[in-house]
C-alpha cells in the first residue's frame, strides 16, 4: 500500500522532464496510468468476505509516527473513488487542457494531490494523516491558483488554504489530545479505547478541535465560503478535488471517528445540526447562482451537508445511507462538473443567463446532464442512483433514537421537515441547471464562441460516470455487500446489512419524495415570482464579507497595533523595557519575600564618605539638567572622579588609578567628539511626559538599590575569591592578586575582552573609512 500511496508522488518527480515533450505527447497520457493502475490494484479487494488489511512501515518510531496503513471498507470506498475518478479526470483533462498550458505544473500538483488524498484515507497514524491532510490543502491551493495571473484565482487559492489549514491546525490539536488521552497514535487503537476517551474531561475540546478540521475541509456552514471561490480552478480539478474527493475528507474524518464519538449525545447535535443547516443553506443558495460551476459548488456544499447529517444520526441505517450517497454523489456530481466544463470549453461561457437551447447543438452532453441532474434531484425513477440514497435519507431521518437532551429532541422532530425543505431547493436548482442550459431560447450571439458538441475524448469520462449512475440505479445491490456494507460497518462498528429496493410501498419516505417533486416543480415553474426573497437576505455575500473583513482587518489592525508602539523612538523603547522590568521584578520580590536587609556587618559611615556620595548624587542629577554638552560631560566626570576617591578611601589604589585614567580619557574623548556635534536641544516634552519618565527612572533605581541591599544581606556562602587570595602568590606566582586573576585564573575573560576592543577598533575604522554616501575616504 505504501507504493500505491507514494507512486503518484514519485511519478510527479519525472513530470517536469516528461512535460518537455508536451508538443508531441500530451503529458496527461503518462499520468493516466498512475490512477488507473492504483484503481485496478484496489479493485481486487472488493469482496463480500473482505477483511481489513493493515500494513506498517517505520518512519519516526521514537515519536510514534509510523506509516501505518489500514485498509477497511471505508478506506476502500474512498481509495476507489480517488483512483477511479482520478483516472476519469485525468483522461478528461487531456482534452480539456491545451498543450500550450503549463501541463507540467498541472500534473505535478494533481499527482501530489493523489498521494495526499490516498494517504489521508489510508493512514492509521493520526500524525501521518495530518501530514497528508495538509498536503491536500497545499495541492488544492496550487491547483486553484493554477491560472494565477487571474486576481480571482489568487483570492480563491488563498481563501481555501487559510480556511482549510485553520481547520487542519485545529485538528492537529485534537489529535495530540487524543494521543495523550489514549497513549497511542493509532486510530484503531483509539477506537478500541472509546471508553477512555468518552470519560476524559477533554472530550468536548477534542471534539471541537477535530470537528473544526472536518467542517472546514468539507465546506460545512459557515466555513463553506471557500468552496465557491475554489471554482476558479480548472474544471477537471473542480470535478476531482472540490466535488468528488478532497471535500469528502472531512466526511471521512467524521466517519472514521464516529465509533468513538457517536455515543456522546452532542455528537448528533453538532454533526447533524451543522449538516442540516449546510444542506438547506447550500441548496437555497444554489438556486441563486448564475454561474454553472457556482450552482454546482453550492450543490456540492448542500450534498455534503446531507451526508454529514446522516453521519450525525449514528444509526446503522444512516451509516449505510451515508456511504451509499458518498458513492452516488461522486458519480452524478463528477459527471455534471465535466459537462459544465464541456459547455464552458465549447461556448466560452458558464453564465446560465447567456446559455440556453443547447440541446440541439450538444445532444450528447445534454443527455448526460439530464441523467446527472435528475439523479441529483432525487427524481423517483428506477435507473437513477440519486433517488435511492435520497429516499434512504428521508427514511433514516424519521428513525432517530431518543435522547435526554432537550435540544436533541427539538432537532429530532425538525430534521425530517428541514430535509424535505432542502431537497425541494435541490430539486429546483437541478431543474434550473438542466433546463436553463439546454432548453429555451438560444443566445448564440452573446456567447464568445459558436457552440458545438465536444470531442469524443472529453465525453468519455462523464459518460462512464453516468453509466455508473444508471447501473447503480438499476442494480443497486451490486455494490452493496462487497463494498458498502464493509464501509458502513467501519463507521457504525457493527455488521450492517441492507437490501436496497426501489419500491417500499406507500410509506413516509415516498410521500416525502413526492412532496419534493411536486413543490419543487411548482417552485421551479414560478421561480421568477419568488426569487426576490434573495434580495431580502443578503445571502452568502455577508459571510464572504466576514472573511474579507477578517483578512483585511488582520492587516489593517496588525498595522495599527504594531505601529502604535513600534514608532522608532528609542526613549519609548527603553521606557517600556524598564517599566516591564520594574513591574515584574518588584512583583517577584514581593511574592517570593525577596527583600532582606541586614545592618550588623556594615562598617561605620564616615563624614568624608557622606560628602563624596552627596557630591556624586548631585553631579548625577546635574547631568540631567545641564543645558550644554560640555557642561553635561564635565558634571558627569565628577561622578567618575568621586568613585575613584571612594576607591582611595577603601584602600584600593590600583583601582583608583585605573578609574582615574578611564575617567580622564572618556571625558577628554567626549569633549573632542561633542565639539563636532550639534548642541543639546532644550527639552520640549510636556510636564506629564517628564514626570512619567522620572517615575520610571526613579523606580528602576529603587529596584536596583533594593536588590543590591538584599543581595548584600544574603551572603550565604563563602566566595571563591578566598581561593584566589590564598593561592595567587603560591600557585599563580604573582603578588598582585588582581593581576593573577586577570592573566591566569580567568585568562580567557581577559583574552576576549581584548578581542572586544580589537573588534571595536576595526569596526570604528571601517565605519569611518567606508561610507555609502562618500565611498572609501
Amino acid at each position: 500500500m505504501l507504493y500505491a500511496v507514494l507512486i503518484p508522488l514519485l511519478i510527479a518527480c519525472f513530470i517536469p522532464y516528461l512535460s518537455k515533450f508536451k508538443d508531441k505527447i500530451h503529458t496527461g497520457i503518462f499520468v493516466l496510468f498512475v490512477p488507473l493502475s492504483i484503481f485496478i490494484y484496489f479493485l481486487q479487494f472488493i469482496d463480500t468476505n473482505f477483511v481489513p488489511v493493515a500494513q506498517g512501515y517505520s518512519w519516526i518510531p521514537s515519536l510514534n509516527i509510523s506509516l501505518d496503513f489500514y485498509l477497511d471498507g471505508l478506506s476502500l470506498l474512498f481509495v476507489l473513488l480517488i483512483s477511479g475518478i482520478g483516472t476519469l479526470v485525468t483522461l478528461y483533462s487531456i482534452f480539456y487542457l491545451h498543450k500550450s498550458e503549463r501541463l507540467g505544473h498541472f500534473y505535478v500538483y494533481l499527482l501530489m494531490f493523489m498521494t495526499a488524498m490516498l494517504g489521508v484515507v489510508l493512514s492509521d497514524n493520526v500524525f501521518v494523516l495530518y501530514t497528508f491532510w495538509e498536503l491536500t490543502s497545499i495541492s488544492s491551493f496550487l491547483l486553484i491558483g493554477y491560472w494565477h495571473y487571474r486576481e480571482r484565482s489568487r483570492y480563491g487559492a488563498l481563501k481555501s488554504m487559510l480556511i482549510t489549514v485553520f481547520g487542519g491546525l485545529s485538528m492537529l490539536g485534537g489529535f495530540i489530545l487524543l494521543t495523550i488521552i489514549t497513549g497511542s497514535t493509532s486510530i484503531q487503537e483509539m477506537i478500541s479505547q472509546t471508553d477512555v476517551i468518552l470519560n476524559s474531561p477533554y472530550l468536548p475540546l477534542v471534539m471541537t478541535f477535530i470537528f473544526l478540521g472536518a467542517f472546514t475541509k468539507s465546506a460545512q456552514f459557515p466555513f463553506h465560503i471557500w468552496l465557491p471561490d475554489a471554482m476558479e480552478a480548472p474544471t477537471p480539478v473542480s470535478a476531482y478535488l472540490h466535488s468528488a474527493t478532497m471535500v469528502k475528507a472531512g466526511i471521512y474524518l467524521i466517519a472514521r471517528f464516529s465509533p468513538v464519538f457517536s455515543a456522546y449525545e452532542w455528537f448528533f447535535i453538532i454533526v447533524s445540526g451543522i449538516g442540516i443547516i449546510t444542506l438547506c443553506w447550500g441548496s437555497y443558495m444554489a438556486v441563486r447562482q448564475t454561474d454553472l460551476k457556482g450552482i454546482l459548488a453550492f450543490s456540492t456544499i448542500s450534498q455534503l451537508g446531507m451526508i454529514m447529517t446522516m453521519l450525525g444520526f449514528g444509526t446503522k441505517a444512516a451509516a449505510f445511507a451515508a456511504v451509499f450517497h458518498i458513492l452516488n454523489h461522486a458519480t452524478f456530481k463528477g459527471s455534471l462538473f465535466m459537462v459544465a466544463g464541456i459547455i464552458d470549453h465549447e461556448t466560452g461561457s458558464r453564465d446560465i443567463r447567456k446559455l440556453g437551447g443547447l440541446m440541439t447543438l450538444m445532444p450528447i452532453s445534454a443527455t448526460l446532464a439530464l441523467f446527472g441532474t435528475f439523479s441529483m434531484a432525487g427524481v423517483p425513477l428506477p435507473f437513477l442512483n440519486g433517488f435511492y440514497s435520497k429516499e434512504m435519507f428521508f427514511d433514516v431521518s424519521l428513525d432517530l433514537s431518543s435522547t435526554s437532551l432537550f435540544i436533541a429532541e427539538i432537532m429530532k422532530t425538525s430534521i425530517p421537515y428541514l430535509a424535505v425543505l432542502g431537497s425541494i431547493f435541490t430539486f429546483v436548482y437541478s431543474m434550473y441547471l438542466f433546463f436553463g442550459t439546454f432548453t429555451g431560447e438560444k443566445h448564440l450571439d452573446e456567447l464568445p464562441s459558436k457552440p458545438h458538441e465536444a470531442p469524443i475524448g472529453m465525453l468519455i469520462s462523464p459518460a462512464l460516470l453516468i453509466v455508473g449512475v444508471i447501473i447503480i440505479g438499476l442494480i443497486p445491490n451490486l455494490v452493496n455487500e462487497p463494498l458498502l456494507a464493509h464501509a458502513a460497518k467501519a463507521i457504525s462498528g457493527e455488521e450492517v446489512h441492507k437490501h436496497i429496493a426501489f419500491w417500499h410501498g406507500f410509506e413516509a419516505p415516498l410521500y416525502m419524495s413526492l412532496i419534493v417533486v411536486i413543490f419543487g416543480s411548482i417552485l421551479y415553474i414560478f421561480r421568477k415570482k419568488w426569487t426576490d426573497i434573495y434580495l431580502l437576505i443578503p445571502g452568502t455575500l455577508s459571510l464572504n464579507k466576514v472573511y474579507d473583513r477578517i483578512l483585511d482587518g488582520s492587516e489593517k489592525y496588525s498595522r495599527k497595533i504594531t505601529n502604535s508602539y513600534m514608532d522608532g523612538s528609542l526613549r519609548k523603547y527603553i521606557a517600556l523595557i524598564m517599566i516591564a522590568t520594574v513591574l515584574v521584578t518588584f512583583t517577584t520580590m514581593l511574592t517570593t519575600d525577596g527583600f532582606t536587609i541586614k545592618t550588623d556587618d556594615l562598617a561605620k559611615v564616615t563624614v568624608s564618605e557622606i560628602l563624596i556620595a552627596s557630591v556624586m548624587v548631585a553631579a548625577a542629577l546635574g547631568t540631567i539638567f545641564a543645558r550644554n554638552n560640555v557642561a553635561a560631560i564635565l558634571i558627569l566626570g565628577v561622578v567618575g572622579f568621586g568613585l575613584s576617591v571612594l576607591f582611595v578611601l577603601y584602600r584600593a589604589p590600583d583601582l583608583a588609578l585605573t578609574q582615574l585614567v578611564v575617567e580622564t580619557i572618556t571625558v577628554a574623548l567626549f569633549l573632542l567628539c561633542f565639539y563636532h556635534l550639534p548642541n543639546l536641544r532644550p527639552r520640549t516634552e510636556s510636564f506629564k511626559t517628564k514626570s512619567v519618565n522620572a517615575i520610571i527612572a526613579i523606580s528602576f533605581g529603587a529596584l536596583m538599590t533594593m536588590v543590591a541591599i538584599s543581595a548584600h544581606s544574603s551572603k550565604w556562602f563563602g566566595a571563591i575569591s578566598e581561593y584566589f587570595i590564598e593561592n595567587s602568590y603560591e600557585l599563580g606566582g604573582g603578588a598582585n592578586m588582581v593581576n593573577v586573576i586577570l592573566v591566569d585564573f580567568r585568562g580567557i575573560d581577559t583574552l576576549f575582552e581584548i578581542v572586544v576592543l580589537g573588534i571595536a577598533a576595526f569596526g570604528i575604522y571601517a565605519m569611518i573609512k567606508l561610507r555609502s554616501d562618500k565611498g572609501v575616504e
Partner: protein
Amino acid sequence: MSNLAVLPIVIPLISGILLALLHKKIQLVRVLAQLFTGINLVVAIYIMYVVQKNGSIILESGGWDAPYSIVLVADLLSILLVVTTNIVALACVFYAPKSLSKQQEEFYFYTFFFMLISGVSGAFLTGDLFNLFVFFEVLLMASYALIVLGGGKVQLRESIKYVLINLFSSMLFVTTIAFLYSVVGTVNMAQIAQRVQEVDQKGILTTIAILLFFVFGTKAALFPLYYWLPKPYIVPNPVISALFGALLTKVGIYAILRVFTLIFVHDTDFTHNFFIWIAGFTLIFGAIGALSTNNIKLVISYNIIPAVGFMIMGIGLYNEAALSGTIYYLVHDMIIKAALFLLVGSVAYLAGTSDLRKIKGLIHHYPLLGWLFFLSAFVLAGIPPFSGFIGKLLLLQGGLQNDEVVIVIIALLSSLLILLSMIRIFVRGFWGEKDESIRVDKKAARAFTMPIVFLLFFSVLLGVGAELFYPMIENIAAYLLNPELYIESVLKE
C-alpha cells in the same frame, strides 16, 4: 580533560585575525574564509561525535580546578548548537561574495564574521556566568561592527537603537551577575546551581533570576523587550541579517534555557509559569507584527519573534516533550531563519525593491527561487513533514500534557498567522502576471540559490529524517531535566 572544547572558539578567532591581515587580497580571503568555516564545521561535528560517545567534554582553562577556573562545557546541547551555528555560517560565507560589495568585504567583513561565530560558540560552550557575559560582548561588538558596515544613513540610524538597547541590557547583565555573586559567592554555573539548590532558591534569588531573565529576554527578543529587533535587523546586507536572525536571538534563548533548567529550577510554579504568559504574548504580538507590513524583509524579521515565543513556551512548560520541542525548534529556527533572510534578500535584490506592493509575478522569471520560498513558508509555519513541525508537535504535546490549553490554542493560531504572512508574499509577489519591466539576472539568482538550497536541505532532513536527530534531542531534554548530571560532570563530586 580535553582541549577539544576550545576549538570552535579558537579556530574562528584565529581565522578572523589572519583575514584581517590579508584583507586587501580579497580572492584569497574568500577562499580562506570558506575553508576555515568548513574546517570549523567538521571539527564541531567531530566534537559532537566524541561527546555523544564519551559524554560531556569539560575544559578547565589554565589548568585550574573548577570552580576556580573558567570552565568550558561541551555537552550535547552546546555542541549541537555550535554545529548548527557553523552550518548557518557555512551557507552565509558562500553567499557573502555575491551579496556584499567588494569594499564591504575589504573592510573586514570576514573578520567580524569570524568574531561573531567565535562569540556565539563561546556563549554556547562556556560554563561560567561571567565568561558568558564576555562572549556576549564579543558577539555584540562584532554585530555592532557588522550592522554599520557600509555606513548607510538608515543603517546608522537603526544601529544606534540596536547598540544602546543592547548596551543597557549588558549593563543590567553584569550588575545582576554581581548581585548573584554576592549571594552565592561564585560565577561557575555548576557551582551556582549547586548552591542555589542548597538554599532552595530562597530569598532574593528568585528576584535575581527574574532580572537575569530580563537580560536574556532582551537579547532573545521576547515580549515586551523586542522593540529593538525588527528594523535594525533589515538594514544591513542580507547575509548579515541572516547571521543575526539565525544566531543572536538564539543565544539569548539558549541562555534562558541553560539558566532556567540548571540553576533556577526550584520555584518553577512562579518563574516558569510566568514564561508561559510571556510566550503567549510573544507569539501573538510577533505574528501580528509579521502581518503589519508590506516590506518583505520586515516580515521575516518580525517572524523571529513568534519563533522565540515557541521556544520560551517549551522552557515554561518544563517537561520532557516541551524541552525537546524547544531544542528542536531552536535548531530548526536557526537554519530556516538564515535561509529566509537570504531568500528575501535575494528577492529584494532581484526585484529591485523590498516593497511587496511593487513586486509581482516573480515566479515567471525565477521559478526555483519561488518554489524555495514556497517550501520555506511551510517549513516556517510548521507544516509537516518539515523541521518546524517536529518542534511544534513536541511543544504542543508538552503543553497539553500540562493542561495548558490556552497557550496551545495561541500557538496553533499564531502558526496560521505566520503562514498567512508568508504565503501572502508568495501569492502577491511570485504569482500574478509577468512583470516585463524588471531586469532579469539569472546568473545572480543561481548564485544566490545554492546556499539557500543547502540550508533548506537541512530543514527537510530535520523533518523527514527526524528519527536521525530526535533520540539525541530527547536525551538532551532528559539531561536538562536532571541538573545533577551537569553539576557532577563539572565539579566531579
